[in-house]
C-alpha cells in the first residue's frame, strides 16, 4: 500500500503537526513502522499514530534514555522506530543513548524532536533547546533534518522512511508558522532549495527562519533595492555544498539564519563549506552564548533578534563589507 500524501496546508500551522500526520500515514502504509514517545505524545503529535496503532506505539513515560535504547533494540530487530520527545530531551538528556545505540549502530531510527528552539516560548531556558543541531551534527553518522514549514515537514517524514536508511534527527517546532511551500514537495532533493533568486546577497535559512528570510528579502528589495537570494537548508547534515557555493560565488556575501546557537549550527556548517572552497563574508543570525528566557514564542524570537528585521539588518551590515572584500586584500602582493 502506497503512503497517502496529505492535502497541502495554506494557513499557518506547526511543523510538529506534519510529523504527527505523516507518521500516521506511514503507519497506515507500512507495518514495520513503530513509534515511541516519552509522555509528550500530544505535544509531539505522535498520539495520532498511537491512537490508531496502540500495539505498535510505546509510551515510555518520562524516561527518554530508556526510550532511545528501546528504539535501538526495535530497529536492530527489523522495525523502523520513530522516537519522539522535545528536542531538549532527545538531543540533550538521551545524547549517549542516541550516540551508542542509534548512530554508532547506523540503525534506521528516526528521532522526532519537537519544540526545537526558543519559539517554544513560555517554558523558558530549561526546555528551549538551542544546541541540538550542533550536538547532532557533531555526532558521527547522524543526519540532521530541519524542515521549513508544514508541507516540507510532511515530505521530510515520508522521506525519512522511503528514501533513506541512515540514522536521522528531525527537528520540528511548536508554534504555527506560515507556509513556505505551496504544495507538499515531491522530494527533499539535496536538502537545499533556492526559494528566491537574487544577485546581491544570499540569505541561507533553516526551519522557522525560512519564511522570515523570505520576508527579509522582500524588505531588502523594497527598502534598499537589494536583490537577495534565499536558500532553504532542510538537510543541515550532510550539507549539500554545491548549491551553497553556487549562490555565494554569485552574490559574494551571505547571511545565515537559524533558531539555534550560531556555534555548531547552520552558520558553522555553511562557513565551513565556504571557508574551504569559496571564502566570502558570512554573517549569522542566531543565538549567541546565552540561554533562552520565558515569554511567548514570538516574544522570545523578537528578544533574540530572530526576526525578518534581524535578518535584513544583518544583511545590510554584510553588504557594507562586500565591496571592501571584493576589492581584494588591502596589502596583497600586487600592492607592493
Amino acid at each position, binding site marked *: 500500500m502506497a503512503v497517502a500524501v496529505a492535502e497541502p496546508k495554506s494557513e499557518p500551522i506547526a511543523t510538529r503537526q506534519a510529523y504527527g500526520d505523516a507518521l500516521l500515514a506511514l503507519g497506515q502504509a507500512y507495518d514495520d513502522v*513503530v513509534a515511541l514517545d516519552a509522555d509528550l505524545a500530544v505535544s509531539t503529535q505522535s498520539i495520532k499514530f498511537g491512537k490508531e496503532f496502540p*500495539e*505498535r506505539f*510505546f509510551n*515510555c*513515560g518520562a*524516561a527518554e*534514555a*530508556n526510550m*532511545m*535504547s*528501546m*528504539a*535501538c*533494540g*526495535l*530497529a*536492530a*530487530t*527489523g*522495525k523502523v*522506530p520513530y522516537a519522539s520527545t522535545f528536542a531538549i530531551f532527545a538531543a540533550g538528556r538521551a545524547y*549517549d*543513548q542516541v550516540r*551508542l*545505540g542509534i548512530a*554508532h*549502530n*547506523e540503525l534506521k531510527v528516526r528521532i522526532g524532536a519537537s519544540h526545537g528552539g526558543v519559539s517554544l516560548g513560555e517554558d523558558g531556558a530549561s526546555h528551549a533547546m538551542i544546541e541540538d543541531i550542533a550536538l547532532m551534527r557533531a555526532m558521527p553518522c547522524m543526519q540532521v533534518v530541519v524542515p521549513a514549514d508544514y508541507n516540507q515537514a510532511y515530505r521530510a517524514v515520508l522521506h525519512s522512511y522511503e528514501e533513506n536508511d541512515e540514522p536521522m534527527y528531525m527537528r520540528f517546532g511548536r508554534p504555527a508558522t506560515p507556509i513556505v511551500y505551496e504544495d507538499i514537495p515531491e522530494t527533499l532533493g539535496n536538502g537545499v532549495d533556492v526559494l528566491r533568486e537574487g544577485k546581491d546577497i544570499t540569505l541561507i535559512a533553516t526551519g522557522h527562519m525560512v519564511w522570515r528570510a523570505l520576508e527579509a528579502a522582500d524588505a531588502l528589495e523594497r527598502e534598499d533595492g537589494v536583490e537577495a537570494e534565499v536558500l532553504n537548508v532542510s538537510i543541515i547534515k550532510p550539507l549539500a555544498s554545491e548549491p551553497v557555493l553556487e549562490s555565494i560565488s554569485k552574490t559574494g556575501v551571505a547571511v545565515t539564519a537559524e533558531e539555534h546557537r550560531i556555534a555548531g549550527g547552520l552558520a558553522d556548517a555553511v562557513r565551513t563549506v565556504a571557508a574551504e572552497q569559496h571564502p566570502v563574508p558570512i554573517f549569522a543570525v542566531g543565538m549567541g552564548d546565552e540561554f533562552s528566557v520565558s515569554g511567548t514564542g514570538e516574544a522570545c524570537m523578537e528578544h533574540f533578534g530572530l526576526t525578518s528585521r534581524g535578518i535584513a539588518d544583518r544583511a545590510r551590515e554584510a553588504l557594507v563589507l562586500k565591496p571592501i572584500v571584493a576589492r581584494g586584500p588591502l596589502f596583497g602582493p600586487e600592492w607592493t
Partner: protein
Amino acid sequence: MTHLRPVPDPKPRQPDPEGAGVPTIAELERWATVLRIDCVSMLAVAKSGHLDSSLSAADIMAALYYRILRHDPKNPSWPERDRFVLSKGHAAPILYAALAHTGYFPREDLMGLRQIGAHLQGHPDMNRTPGVEVSTGSLGQGLSMSLGIALALRLDGLDDTAHVFALLSDGDIQEGQTWEAATAGPHYKVKNLTAIVDYNHLQTDGTTEEVMDTGDVRAKFESFGWDAVEIDGHDMNAIVEALERSRTLDRPAAVVCQTKKGKGVSAMEGRFGFHGKPPSPELAQEAWEELEALYARQSEALQNGDSEGES
C-alpha cells in the same frame, strides 16, 4: 595477524567436537574453563581489557551459549533465534570467546582483540562482529535495548519462542536507566526477557559496597514487578535451572547471580585492583596453569563418566 606477538600457547581445546545433544552440567563447567583460558590468552596478547569482569561471567556465558540459547552460528540473522545482549560490554572477551567457540568466527580472530584492523573491538560492535546483537559498552543501556528487541519479537509473533537474555553488571545496576527499563518491562507485559545480573561486588574504584551500595538487587527487581531469583553464579546447575525456568514465565525475569570477580584465577578472585587491567605475563602464566589443571581434572572426571560435575 603477523603484527601480533606470538600467542603464548593457549592450547586450543576441542572437547567433544562431535558431541551431539544437550551438554551435561559437567561439560558446561568444562566449557566455562575453556572460555576462561581463552580470555586470559586474549588479554595477555592485547595487553588491554577487562579480564576479571569476563571471568566472573564465564559460567553464565557457557550455560547460555552451550545450552540455553536457541541460536545458529552459521545463520546469525536467523529471525527466530534467541538474543543475547551483553549490557556489561566491557566483558567483551568472554562474549568473543563464546562466539568463536560456538562457530560465529574463527578462533584465531580472538588474538586480534583491541587491535587496529581486527573486528573484535574493545566493546561489542554489532556491525563488526558476527553474533553481536547490539553494540554496548556505555553501562545502563543494555536492558533497554533488550526490552526493545523483546517488543519487536512480540510484534512479529515470536515472543513464545524467541527469548532475550541481557547480562548486566553491578555497574549497570548503578545506572538509573536500568531502572527505567526495569519499570517498563512489566508495564509492557513482556514475557520473553531475562535480566541476568553478574553481581561480582567489585568495580573500578573499590567494592560496590564502598563505592555505591546497590543493596538487595533481587528485591529491587521484585518490587519493580519482575520474577526475581538469586543464585550462586558459579553453580552451573543453579544457572541452568534458573535460566531455563526464566523463559517459561509470563513476565520478565531477573536472575541475580552472586559471583566472584576474577573467578578461576586464585590471584585475582574477589580481589580489588584488577578492573580494566590486563594480566602481567607472570599472572597470565599462573592463570593458564591453574585453569589448565582444572581443565585436566574436569576432562578426567568426564572420562570417568561423572556427568554431574565437580560442584
